[in-house]
């Protein structure tokens, strides 16, 4: 069997590992337009922060490909898939044949057009190692940096460069930071922490026009800058499948086996849409655990081992200068809130089940909450009053607890 995997990050690697576990002899080739050994993409901000380095960023050990007998085509872009001929065409004219193909192409930064943006010299996005290296090269202790986007990417970028730049301003259309994962009160806690490190926020605002080193805001203000980081959002890389005639919605459409509408073509990770277990809606849940689970599932099916992925839901863990923010699920239904200084705990529940949570500054044992969402545990079966204060296994029945602690799981 001849397997080709396009994409060298979480989904692609998980698939390669699953294939190799099931098929010791099959030929596996991983294609990536990045010229690097697999690395933890979300680690680029930690790299700038000095909390990791190029060696420690490796997502798998240095001998990973060799040990698993995986062929690599790095630094070359897959440009087209021909599902009839079962071929992937690479930039430069070469092609690869496949029996089973995985598209794990991830996403790319979305850069909305803005007046004068083309004329900005020092502008960067913040998704890849090359982005981080380029930004690092341009940064000086005197740099005035403007980050557009106060989401996960923009704020992690801020943390990474806060000590390496002269000043940093952050603009976002939303009225709060991390608007996709936090409510107003949780966001305010995070914002205060970032402001204490020198970040200047311009919220409910946007850049209307870039002029010579100045961003003019819709709200009337202006920000002088030397370096611009665009972290507005991302778009799934669906083109390979779309142009080959495969079904694409918000992302590449797959079934629960991670098979696309094209024969012998699978897709996994941030380029795909999946069903949100809580809302039932199709969404691009671009989070690493999801990419890894989908990649593993696709790999198994490609190698002939039947597998399905369960529906996922949003999960995010992020920290800023030691303040940890853990969130899951959605923010609807009834809620319970506890606040104390920089600690903020909010649980959302409806129909007798936990639907989501926000934990700022209190990460301990959060996975116990996550499991309540995942398992759709009836809150009448646990001591919810106890759980509101703290995630504890003591809140479960003795039988349920024995199932967790007294048997193989």
């Amino acid at each position: 069997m001849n397997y080709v995997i396009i994409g060298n990050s979480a989904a692609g690697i998980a698939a390669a590992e699953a294939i190799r576990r099931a098929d010791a002899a099959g030929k596996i080739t991983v294609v990536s337009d990045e010229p690097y050994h697999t690395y933890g993409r979300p680690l680029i901000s930690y790299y700038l922060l000095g909390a990791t380095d190029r060696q420690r960023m490796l997502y798998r050990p240095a001998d990973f490909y060799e040990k698993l007998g995986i062929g690599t085509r790095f630094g070359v872009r897959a440009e087209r898939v021909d599902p009839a001929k079962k071929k992937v065409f690479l930039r430069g004219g070469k092609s690869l044949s496949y029996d089973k193909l995985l598209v794990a192409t991830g996403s790319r930064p979305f850069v909305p057009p803005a007046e004068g943006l083309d004329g900005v010299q020092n502008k960067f996005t913040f998704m890849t190692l090359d982005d981080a290296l380029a930004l690092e090269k341009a940064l000086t202790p005197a740099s005035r940096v403007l980050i557009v986007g106060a989401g996960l990417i923009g704020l992690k970028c801020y943390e990474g460069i806060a000590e390496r730049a002269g000043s940093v301003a952050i603009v976002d259309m939303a009225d709060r930071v991390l608007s996709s994962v936090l409510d107003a009160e949780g966001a305010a806690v995070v914002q205060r922490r970032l402001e204490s490190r020198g970040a200047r926020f311009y919220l409910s605002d946007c850049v209307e026009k870039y002029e010579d080193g100045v961003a003019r805001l819709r709200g009337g203000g202006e920000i002088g800058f030397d370096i611009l980081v665009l972290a507005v959002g991302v778009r799934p890389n669906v083109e390979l499948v779309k142009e080959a005639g495969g079904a694409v919605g918000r992302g590449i459409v797959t079934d629960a086996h991670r098979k696309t509408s094209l024969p012998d073509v699978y897709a996994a990770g941030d380029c795909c849409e999946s069903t949100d277990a809580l809302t039932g809606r199709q969404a691009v849940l671009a989070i690493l655990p999801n990419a890894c689970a989908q990649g593993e599932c696709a790999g198994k099916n490609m190698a002939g081992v039947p597998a399905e992925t369960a529906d996922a839901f949003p999960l995010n863990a992020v920290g800023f200068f030691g303040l940890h923010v853990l969130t899951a699920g959605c923010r609807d239904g009834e809620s319970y809130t506890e606040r104390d200084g920089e600690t903020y705990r909010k649980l959302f529940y409806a129909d007798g089940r936990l639907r989501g949570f926000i934990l700022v500054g209190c990460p301990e044992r959060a996975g116990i909450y996550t499991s309540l969402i995942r398992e759709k545990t009836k809150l009448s079966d646990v001591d919810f009053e106890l759980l509101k204060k703290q995630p504890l296994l003591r809140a479960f029945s003795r039988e349920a607890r024995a199932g967790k602690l007294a048997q193989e799981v």
Partner: protein
Amino acid sequence: MKRIYVNEKWCLGCHLCEYECAFANSGLTDMVRALKGKTIHPNIRVEDGDDIHFAVNCRHCKDAPCLKGCISGALSRGEDGVVRIDKDKCVGCYTCILLCPYGAVLPGPDGHAAQKCQLCTDNLCGYPNCVKHCPNNAIVYEER
């Protein structure tokens, strides 16, 4: 594989396992020097209720959620089945803490890396020290 299991009804709530864990992972051979006057950060934690006590540590799940969520590749499974964390690679994002259904992956004391039970394969003991010193056999190390 052999794992640690908890017999809840035999747990006295003495917390000795926590001290033995902290000692085992201190790198020192003298318990007094390792623990006296120090705040301990063990990988096993006892939960106490009105009339129940039990210890919790990593279950080394067959399909471990923490492994799938790790953004840095710091978490991995050895050929012996043990789920381990490379604290040097860990950047402390705490995705593993968000994913562990047992609350068994813990924030490290320095906040920069997570920590978890590695069945004393990573220290001088070679055999789970919490199990060895549990006075009432409430923690056992066996195949189930």
